[in-house]
């Protein structure tokens, strides 16, 4: 029993490490793509690895008080925990042990820990930044929760692993609930704080908001957190709507299935990430009221339509995947 437990732990560790590496790679690709959109050469794709290396190797690190340390610790631990609960490339890590609502609240742990650390830096910019971040969270959570509800009602399950199986057997989320997928993608733009919605970390207005007092190893760990959260949010979208990239059934093909699924999953999250980056490259930044009004108007209407569609299909038309 201990042996396969260790193998499981080893695999989870490998998947988490790969997730963070992919996250940093995606940040590098995003900077390259944005540069190309702006007709610039742009940094090398591995630039973010150098940035994180430089930050972690900084000589002096400034900290304000013991609550200040909460930010990097809770942020990194929380995002790794959330990634552990998310099936990546069909490999169901801990997602059998917890369900979508648990994952939703685990994603709140790093946000709250990061907000605590930022608040403890006694800098008014940080306080305003966190206020904006929480308001943005309230705004994009409205359509996102409606979308999750539509999925749970339609597939009649809250556990991600069974959701993957049902998507494989019945139809992908994007095929069954296209309207909800659109609302989810709009909500994703706010969740990943990409350009029209990077209000909380606005460098020009509030000196990069909550990050104002973080430098050196603190900023390095927070960069790992943001890398992990990129993979987390894109994988969440892929798992909910694109069947988690599961193409070959692991039961029949064994290891090859896992590798192929991993590649397909990688391509899917890359596509989702590119949509977000291309929107990011061309949009100015909204004010927080505009973002709130936007999210509680159009994406919420779309999400409600998706919910109604799911409700009708599952209750009246009796479609049971």
């Amino acid at each position: 029993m201990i042996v396969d437990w260790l193998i499981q732990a080893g695999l989870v560790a490998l998947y988490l490490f790969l997730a963070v590496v992919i996250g940093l790679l995606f940040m590098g690709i995003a900077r390259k793509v944005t540069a190309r959109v702006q007709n610039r050469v742009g940094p090398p794709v591995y630039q973010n690895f150098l940035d994180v290396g430089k930050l972690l190797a900084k000589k002096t690190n400034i900290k304000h008080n013991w609550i200040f340390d909460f930010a990097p610790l809770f942020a990194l631990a929380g995002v790794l925990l959330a990634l552990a609960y998310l099936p990546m490339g069909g490999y169901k890590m801990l997602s059998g042990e917890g369900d979508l609502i648990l994952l939703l609240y685990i994603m709140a742990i790093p946000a709250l820990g990061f907000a605590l650390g930022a608040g403890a830096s006694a800098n008014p910019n940080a306080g305003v930044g966190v206020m904006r971040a929480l308001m943005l969270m309230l705004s994009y959570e409205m359509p996102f929760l409606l979308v999750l509800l539509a999925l749970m009602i339609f597939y009649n399950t809250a556990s991600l692993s069974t959701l993957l199986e049902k998507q494989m057997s019945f139809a992908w989320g994007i095929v069954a609930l296209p309207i909800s997928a659109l609302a989810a993608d709009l909500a994703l733009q706010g969740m990943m704080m990409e350009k029209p919605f990077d209000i909380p970390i606005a460098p020009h207005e509030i000196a990069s908001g909550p990050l104002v007092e973080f430098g050196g190893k603190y900023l390095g760990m927070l960069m790992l957190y943001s890398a992990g959260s990129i993979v987390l949010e894109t994988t969440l979208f892929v798992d909910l709507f694109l069947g988690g990239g599961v193409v070959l059934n692991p039961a029949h093909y064994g290891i090859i299935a896992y590798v192929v699924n991993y590649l397909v999953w990688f391509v899917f999250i890359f596509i989702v990430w590119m949509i977000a980056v291309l929107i990011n490259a061309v949009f100015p930044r909204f004010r927080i009221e505009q973002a709130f009004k936007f999210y509680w108007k159009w994406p919420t209407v779309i999400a409600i339509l998706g919910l109604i569609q799911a409700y009708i299909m599952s209750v009246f038309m009796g479609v049971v995947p």
Partner: protein
Amino acid sequence: MDALTLFGIFILLPLVGALLSYFGRKYAPIIALIFVAITGIFLYVWYGNFGSYTVDIGVKLNLTFDITTWFFMLMINTVIFSSLLFAVSADLKNAGGFSTLMLLGFTGANGVLLSRDFLSLYLFWELMSWSVYVLILRTSGEYARRYLLFGVLSAYFIIMGIGIIYYYTGSFLYEDALSGVIPYYAWAWILVFLILGFGVKMAIIPLHVWAPYAYSSEQPFVSFLSGGLSKLGTFGIYMSMYSIAGVGILDSFGTFRGVSLLGYPFALLGAITAFVGTILAIFQDDIRKLLAYSSIGQLGYVMVGLGLGTSLALGGALFHAFNHAFFKSLLFLGAGAVIYRTGKYKISEMGGLGYRMPFTFLFVLFAIFGLAGIPLTSGFISKWMLYEAAIEKKFVIIAPLMLIASVGAFLYSYRILYGIFLGGLKEEHKKVKEAPAPMLAAMFILMLPLLIFSIVPGWILGWINDVLTNTGLKPIDYTQFTYYSSIGGANMATFWIAFMVLFFVAVAIFIMKRARVVNQYDNYFAGEAPSSVALHAAHNYYKPLKDTWAPMLKYSVDRAYEKFSKFFVDGFYEIKKIYTGNPQDYAAYLGIAFLIFLIIGWWLL
């Protein structure tokens, strides 16, 4: 254990304690503490043997000590124990009177939980409600009057319910209500009256107006009122819906996807309460009002669970009531400790107290995790059960309201944390000391169950299962560490192990390099001088949100009541003008009246 010992321990002992502690003056809370501890010990000892007895004190009281009563008594006893432990060092004025009234309230609460006939229920309900009124009176008459209005309203609703039952069955016993004599439509009236009567105590939306005012009195009392006594409302609704009426009666109103048509509107009302309570809590600047609206919001969740009526929903409601008893009283005690040390109520006036009062900050932080439903505390499990219950039955109005309300809970939670404990430490708070030891002990007692039941949810789910089966409902399936619903489940053991391991990984990366501590003035203010004035961004914290919500915030139930009452006051004022007091007017009135009658008489002929 027979009738008299049961009655003696849970009712007479606190009464004697109330009497004795009045003369204790400064040491009154300690005396009261001893009496509450005794009842606590007996509660622990008598876990096994339940039974129902009748006591004859002039009028026959029907008392039953079963698992439901035990479960609710556990909450109320712990909460009052920690409130009194807090009051020991809170040097309240006239502490003797305070502890007497607290013990009277405690007696009333015990009586309500023990009683199985409407007479004793009403007797103890009035005793508890009266003692709460006088306790609020200690702070301000105006708040107490508002509470009294709603207290009396709730008493009348309960009497109406009891009256109808007595009219049909002729007896006050709970069991007799089910004797089939009461017709179908009468049950609707009985349940509506009883639920609204008990709902006032749980501050459901239309009847919540008293809560923000009542919660602004002394913090130890408020933590008992909001943490303990609001559970009596839950107990009342739970008993009246599922023990007195029973599932059969409820389903006789027709079921909508397995949920009785009577329960669904109350569940909807609960969801609206959760949403409105949370949104209002976000904009409050006074810490007590913010916690009051947040308490209304959380009790809205409990109301949803009670309304839905499936075993998972009821289990979630009971568990959430249990959690709410602990994290809400912990929050009020934390706020009380801060108010005791700084003497300020406004969040924007405080700031940076977390550096001076680290333990209070940690306790409040843990309570906030419980409130917001972070999986590190048991707060998450109860919310999870309520969500699963709503999603299981595909309720597409209740579930989104609850989910958005929980996200709203993050907003006002951070407002408390940032406004009071983080941000810049003001000059006058430089020498604020940590809260005294009894206060910290009280808060520690309240924090324990939140942590324990998050690691091992099995124990409390066991108790909840006994309560459900005791009232004849299907149990929920769970094991020592995991809990399931029909559409999902979660295992807290793997969660905690994974969290510990990954937290260790983060710490490993973190301690590679040491960090230099700088004070709060060595900060980046765009190159400007680190001024001695602490820049704290907590004033009017969610202003953009308030601007976007402004059109909706215009309507408020408070103002509706005020306009309603003003309408009557002006009306009566007009009538009063008639009695001018000098005889000529009266003579004139008589003449006019005579004339009018003359004309009518002439016209009729």
